[in-house]
């Protein structure tokens, strides 16, 4: 921890148990995790493994039973709900499976609102919004209401909203979970593009195609990290290599 800048995100000993009807569910059972600046990390695992709970803990949307979280070297231990809400606007962008756009305001307002709440001038908020929507191929949709857009388009609006304040960390919870194959590819392409420009991303997904866009994949099972692998661009030596997968029958 002494050398180099503090990680964007650092968590230690995170534990979270859900108490509902029936037996308590041990969703997160002791997780240590560090994400450095510019990393693109994917967390994969079966549904019910606790990966969404983990992401919610890291975004301050849930409080852990025990353990601690630092953002950019700053401890969040004593943050209240209100403090988390304020810090989240600047430090963390979040996209969800079901977009969570405000349904009764326009696309433009959905993106500008978080900028205004974070203290940007209306002019600045507007400029940021225009740039992001153009970048995401949503020109001409500014005045649309979210319900008028396709799922893929809504998720792109959600991505614009999450990034409008240039947060150091982007959290994505099954961002392609309610999209078709084409929408999934689109989300994958956009996440990769923002990552190439330096955006730090933590992605939770059960979709291995999406996870493979990351350069580090964490396998999450039963509330714990089972494997933490850096993906390299060169496949390990083996018969046929990547082309073997594509080989048609002789």
């Amino acid at each position, binding site marked *: 921890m002494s050398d180099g800048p503090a990680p964007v995100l650092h968590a230690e000993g995170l534990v979270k148990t859900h108490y509902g009807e029936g037996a308590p569910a041990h969703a997160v059972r002791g997780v240590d995790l560090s994400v450095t600046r510019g990393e693109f990390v994917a967390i994969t695992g079966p549904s019910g493994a606790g990966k969404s709970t983990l992401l919610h803990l890291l975004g301050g949307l849930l409080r852990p039973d025990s353990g601690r979280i630092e953002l950019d070297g700053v401890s969040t231990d004593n943050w209240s709900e209100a403090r988390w809400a304020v810090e989240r606007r600047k430090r963390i962008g979040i996209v969800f499976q079901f977009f969570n756009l405000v349904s009764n305001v326009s696309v433009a307002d959905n993106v500008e609102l978080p900028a205004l709440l974070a203290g940007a001038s209306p002019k600045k908020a507007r400029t940021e919004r225009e740039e992001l929507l153009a970048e995401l191929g949503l020109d001409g949709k500014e005045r649309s209401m979210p319900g008028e857009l396709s799922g893929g388009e809504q998720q792109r609006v959600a991505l614009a909203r999450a990034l409008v304040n240039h947060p150091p960390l982007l959290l994505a919870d099954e961002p392609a979970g309610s999209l078709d*194959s084409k929408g999934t590819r689109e989300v994958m392409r956009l996440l990769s593009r923002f990552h190439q420009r330096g955006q730090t991303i933590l992605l939770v997904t059960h979709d291995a195609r999406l*996870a493979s866009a990351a350069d580090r994949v964490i*396998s999450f099972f039963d509330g714990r990290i089972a494997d933490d692998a850096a993906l390299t661009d060169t*496949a390990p030596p083996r018969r046929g290599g990547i082309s073997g*997968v*594509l080989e048609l*029958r002789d």
Partner: protein
Amino acid sequence: MRLPLLALLARGPAHGYELKQDLERMLGSAYPQPNVGQIYVTLGRLEKSGLIEGEDVEQSSRPNKKVYHLTDAGREALSAWFEETEDEPRVRDEFFMKLALAPQTGLADQIALINKQRRQYLTTMRNLSKLAAAEDRDNRIAHLLIEGAMLHLQADLDWLERCQEELEELE
């Protein structure tokens, strides 16, 4: 390679190098580039078995080239090819045997085997994604080939996940 070459010749006569270019154009960068030597060898075999016929065409400044056309027997073989369905892809049986036999050898841990295998699949998946990103957007056939490989890998990864769930419960 035999049937795809017959299929290309169904359109009209062509020489070996043309066929190589046709294959490349259709399959894109995704598919390992067909080796021109392999194409000539295959054409020779197809001719020997009477499925195609070759004709030497004189060229002024170069050696003669051989232009092939499909015979009636070749057309029949091609129809039969389209008629039959293909075998299902195999389950990765070698890995499965490792997983099944590891505990009694005391030489490998099942979960470690799964993790190692998953890393490789994920790396391959990543390379396929890059290939897809680099491929010409309009080449649908090439994109479908890559997408098919990715979906198979996805299924393999899902199955590894199931193995891990089951085997971790026993620990």
